[in-house]
């Protein structure tokens, strides 16, 4: 056995600082990198789709608002065409944006905690020095941050 000298013996509790949040972020990333990367990938695809459909839509709308005189038959027809072309797509996207976060929550975020309980690793995780409350908060914060970042990316 190597020399087990106790140089850094636990002594004074007052000079102990809490475990930094950024270290916990590493932990979450290391454990859930595939899920987090998957969510990022999914949201990336969604963002690409929105850009792909949004640009022509934006273009057509700009043309529509530029239509003069506004009340003319030609302009009404143009509005009708615009609705026919884009209404169903816009509706589908509106539904998608409501459903996707819930699906991510159910399939990516929920297992994060459920897995700990199922495999019994919570007995390891919740007895570390960081404490169970901080551990859970940090973990959820990291995963939420990833989701929010992805969603912001989609919206903008």
């Amino acid at each position, binding site marked *: 056995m*190597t020399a087990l000298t106790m140089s850094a013996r636990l002594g004074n*509790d007052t000079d102990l600082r809490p475990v930094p949040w950024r270290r*916990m972020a*590493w*932990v979450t990333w290391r454990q859930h990198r595939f899920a987090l990367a998957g969510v990022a990938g999914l949201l990336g695809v969604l963002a690409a789709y929105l850009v792909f459909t949004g640009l022509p839509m934006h273009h057509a709308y700009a043309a529509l608002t530029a239509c003069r005189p506004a009340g003319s038959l030609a302009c009404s027809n143009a509005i009708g065409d615009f609705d026919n072309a884009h209404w169903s797509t816009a509706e589908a996207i509106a539904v998608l944006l409501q459903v996707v976060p819930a699906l991510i929550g159910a399939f990516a975020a929920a297992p994060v905690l459920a897995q700990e309980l199922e495999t019994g690793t919570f*007995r*390891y995780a919740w*007895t570390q020095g960081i404490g169970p409350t901080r551990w859970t908060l940090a973990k959820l914060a990291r995963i939420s941050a990833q989701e929010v970042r992805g969603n912001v990316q989609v919206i903008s």
Partner: protein
Amino acid sequence: MTNVIEADHLGKHYRGTWALRECTLAIPAGHVAALVGPNGAGKTTLLNLAVGLAAPSAGAVTVLGGRTAGSRAALDGIAFVAQDTPVYQNLSAQDLLHLTRNLNRHFDMGYARGRLGELGIPLKRKAGKLSGGQQAQLALTLALGRRPRLLVLDEPLANLDPVARHDFMAAVMTAVAADGVSVLLSSHVLAELERVADYLILLSQGRVQLAGKAGDLLASHHMAGLEELAMAYMRETLEVAK
């Protein structure tokens, strides 16, 4: 001398039954304390209460000289190795060391790596690919690397073969000798504890039947060994229950 664990009329109620009740204990520091009793006696419940994984239904429990069980100050000085030594199966030994360092204020990386090296556990291998004995040693290394004052082990030997049992207890005793860490371990395998334990707590039917220094208990009961003593008590309490 402080007490590593102090329980005062501690009780835990699960779905209509008391898993542990009226438990009053004071385990002094500097011992290897064995918590023994038949299955369902409340051993795991008591340990879970001590490390803060469960909250008491009655009474109170403090650790390391008066710190509330489960508080950050308490967890800072306690390392717990749960039954079946759970570690993240999909992470490598190396990652688990980093993980544990990142979850604690203290982690002695040099010591932990050195220990795994001596045990011949490859750092790059995933925990799930290690043998049962190696996983137990890995979990113990993660616990000892935190340099705890109290090491709590729940049935650490239950799923190990005889060689792995011997090696595991040898590792624990080395840490005791070198660091002066106090140990509380539960087991229903009494034979392994005979040589190492110098303090005994006997639980049965959710109650403490017997607690004290091994030497004192043996002398006052005129018994030669802890196993014999514990066995006699367990038989007696089971008879009474019938």
